[in-house]
């Protein structure tokens, strides 16, 4: 078969448009770190597999200042995709995605400490006949492990540029950009002899894919190899079903081989590994001792069945202790600042008493300020999460938790989605794309919103402040309550996963295969960037959605106007918001909640933290004092009509239980609808979560009352 001119000449033609590079590699080999270094973007990175589940596109600049498009693809071990995120990588490389330009060139990044395993994907990519640059990342870690990886030798064996690199500290980037800037990037001269029994089938399938499925010749060859490597041709074909003729040829060969007892897939895979093993042996030598590494020694304790749990518990305690102690002062400053701003508008701005002034103070400032006050805690939470991710400890936490997760039937790959859900359920649900088994994926989607997301944090903190006010109790109690809430969400998720795996979504027990990355010193720059990004997201959300909702809530709490002489309490009670709260009250009264809390429950379906801003609007609207009272104190002063305090410790605790389980997030509902392609599952999720929240809150409140709380 005639090859394109640029291939027969051995060099690639320079693309006439902006060159498009695809960045591919195994999970957790540093793709996103390199992508960020090349493009200057701030894509999330982490020292564990599965951080990227969708493609990202950015622009880098060549040494000559020319723009280069770089597509960061999810990690994959091979082109035989077994999960939705791997399918994204395969489809972009094979030019199947209409929304993504087919890459002209490919940047293959490999982990130098684990070259042999990483080269399998590289070897498959060389089949695509595109110019490839191999980036040997983590050369420092390889050297520390006593590995001598010879880039020159690899370059000779594979016939492509090989660039040693340390993406995390920017070493090798100039050499890489120089290579990327070359107009005449060489094509691989690496020759791979397809095993004789399989070669005729590859040729016949390639011809058919070219003629009948309109694939370019080299893509057709790569697809033919994939079809023969994976038993499931429908999975390989993905969104581009095979033509009848190609299917007929494939089935014909498979039938013939089955008759002969030939393991065609195994033969192909083994043949590749034979070549890769030889190349790796030539390129890598291990110097010095081969005993346990520092990571192995740490893991002996950190993943120990008993010590591992104790360390995990200590880490969680330290995290929440920091949230309560370190954040106390900045939180006080913000609270004072918000109160001063509100007082200034009331007294010194020159704006007389009226609706606009009320809207600014009781709506915008009270609503947004009530949420912004929790910014220091959010920053501390994400700083710690960033540190744990960056060092590689999160993968160990996954390993420890897997012992429990596998008992309830959760897939080992569920850990990263569930972990991501502590920040927000939406990236967690998207991260389930790494799970191959559809039932396991659905179970994870259904339970992910039970993990306590950062939007719940302001609710928990406000309730803990009301539950255990001031210095009356040690900070350990607050930490204990907070850990209890996180544990309830986590074990609740495990409990429901167990139930779903035995009823709705029965399936075989999952097998855990997880790679533990080596421990690394935390990339403080990445951690700081991640933390600041989260802070920006939090503030932007407060300044847009929460501000908008607070303004509308103010209107709903201020209109229709009560007759002249009505108290603020009477005004709120007969307002639109008050009427909605009263309508809900019969359903929530058994939980100890009144109609004012009901307003918060209704509004926080938009987002959980809106509950806090709602309380700010509601209780500021009720108070007509000239001096602004911090929300925490305003809650403590609120009473039932008969004079009993509304926010008793029992009610605060019950409210926290409600928020642990309730599905109070419209964005999560939308993303579950998109990921499951059906309304059935999000509606089921709303029903089971809210039902559980109500039942457990009822039990806690009624039991608490019976016990005299």
């Amino acid at each position, binding site marked *: 078969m005639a090859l394109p001119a640029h291939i027969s000449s051995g060099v690639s033609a320079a693309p006439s448009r902006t060159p498009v590079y695809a960045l591919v590699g195994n999970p957790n080999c540093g793709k996103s770190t390199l992508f960020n270094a090349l493009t200057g973007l701030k894509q999330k990175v982490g020292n564990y597999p599965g951080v990227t*589940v969708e493609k990202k596109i950015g622009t880098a600049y060549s040494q000559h200042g020319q723009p280069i498009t770089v597509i960061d693809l999810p990690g994959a071990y091979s082109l035989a995709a077994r999960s939705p995120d791997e399918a994204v990588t395969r489809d972009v490389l094979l030019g199947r995605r209409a929304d993504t330009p087919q890459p002209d060139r490919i940047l293959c990044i490999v982990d130098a400490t684990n070259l042999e395993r990483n080269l399998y994907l590289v070897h498959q990519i060389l089949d695509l006949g595109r110019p490839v640059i191999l980036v040997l990342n983590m050369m420092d870690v390889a050297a520390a492990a006593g590995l001598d990886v010879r880039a020159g030798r690899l370059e000779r064996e594979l016939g492509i540029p090989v660039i040693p690199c340390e993406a995390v500290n920017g070493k090798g980037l100039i050499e890489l950009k120089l290579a990327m800037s070359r107009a005449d990037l060489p094509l691989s001269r690496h020759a791979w002899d397809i095993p004789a029994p399989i070669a005729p089938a590859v040729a016949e399938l390639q011809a058919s894919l070219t003629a009948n499925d309109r694939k370019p010749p080299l893509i057709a060859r790569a697809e033919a190899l994939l079809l023969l490597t994976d038993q499931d041709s429908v999975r390989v074909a993905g969104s581009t079903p095979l033509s009848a003729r190609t299917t007929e040829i494939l089935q014909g060969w498979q039938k013939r081989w089955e008759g002969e007892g030939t393991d065609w897939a195994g033969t192909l895979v083994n043949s590749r590994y034979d070549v890769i093993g030889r190349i790796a042996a030539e390129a890598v030598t291990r110097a010095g001792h081969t005993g346990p590494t520092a990571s192995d020694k740490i893991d002996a304790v950190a993943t120990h069945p008993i010590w591992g749990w104790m360390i995990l518990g200590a880490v969680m305690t330290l995290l929440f202790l920091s949230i309560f102690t370190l954040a106390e002062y900045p939180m006080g400053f913000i609270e004072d600042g918000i109160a001063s701003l509100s007082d200034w508008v009331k007294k010194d701005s020159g704006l007389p008493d*009226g609706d606009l002034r*009320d*809207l600014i103070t009781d709506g915008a400032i009270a609503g947004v300020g009530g949420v912004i006050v929790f910014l220091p805690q959010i920053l501390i939470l994400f700083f710690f999460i960033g540190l744990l991710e960056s060092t590689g400890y999160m993968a160990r936490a996954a390993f420890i938790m897997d012992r429990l997760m596998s008992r309830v039937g959760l897939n080992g790959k569920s850990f990263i989605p569930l972990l991501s859900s502590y920040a927000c359920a939406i990236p967690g649900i998207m991260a389930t794309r790494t799970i191959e088994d559809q039932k396991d994926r659905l179970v994870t989607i259904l339970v992910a919103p039970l993990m306590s997301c950062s939007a719940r944090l302001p609710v928990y903190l406000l309730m803990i402040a009301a539950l255990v006010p001031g210095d009356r109790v040690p900070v350990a109690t607050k930490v204990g309550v907070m850990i209890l809430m996180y544990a309830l969400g986590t074990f609740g998720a495990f409990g429901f996963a167990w139930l779903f795996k035995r009823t709705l979504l029965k399936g075989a027990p999952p097998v855990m295969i997880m790679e533990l990355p080596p421990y690394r010193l935390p990339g403080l720059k990445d951690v700081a960037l991640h933390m600041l990004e989260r802070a920006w*997201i939090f503030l932007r959300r407060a300044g847009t959605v929460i501000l908008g909702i607070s303004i509308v809530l103010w209107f709903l709490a201020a209109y229709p106007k009560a007759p002249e002489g009505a108290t603020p309490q009477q005004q709120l009670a007969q307002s639109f918001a008050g009427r909605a709260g009263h309508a809900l009250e019969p359903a929530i009264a058994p939980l100890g909640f009144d109609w004012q809390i009901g307003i918060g429950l209704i509004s926080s379906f938009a987002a959980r933290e809106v509950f806090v801003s709602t309380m700010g609007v509601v209780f500021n609207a009720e108070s007509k004092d000239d001096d602004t009272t911090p929300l925490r104190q305003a809650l403590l002063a609120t009473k039932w009509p008969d004079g009993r305090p509304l926010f008793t410790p029992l009610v605060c605790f019950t409210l926290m239980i409600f928020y642990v389980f309730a599905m109070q997030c419209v*964005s999560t509902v939308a993303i579950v609808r998109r990921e499951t392609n059906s309304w059935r599952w999000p509606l089921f999720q709303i029903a089971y979560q809210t039902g559980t929240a109500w039942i457990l809150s009822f039990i806690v409140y009624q039991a608490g009352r019976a016990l005299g709380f």
Partner: protein
Amino acid sequence: MSPEIQTVAALVVVALAAGWLVRRAFAPRKNPGCGGECGCPTGKLKR
């Protein structure tokens, strides 16, 4: 500013906020995910 003008101004602000929230809720999104509010992956980053 008289109370009447304040009321009109406040209602205009409320109407704008409500309109923006409704538009935002129903507008088709080019990118998947939450629109970047929670830091979840979006299909395409800004260049």
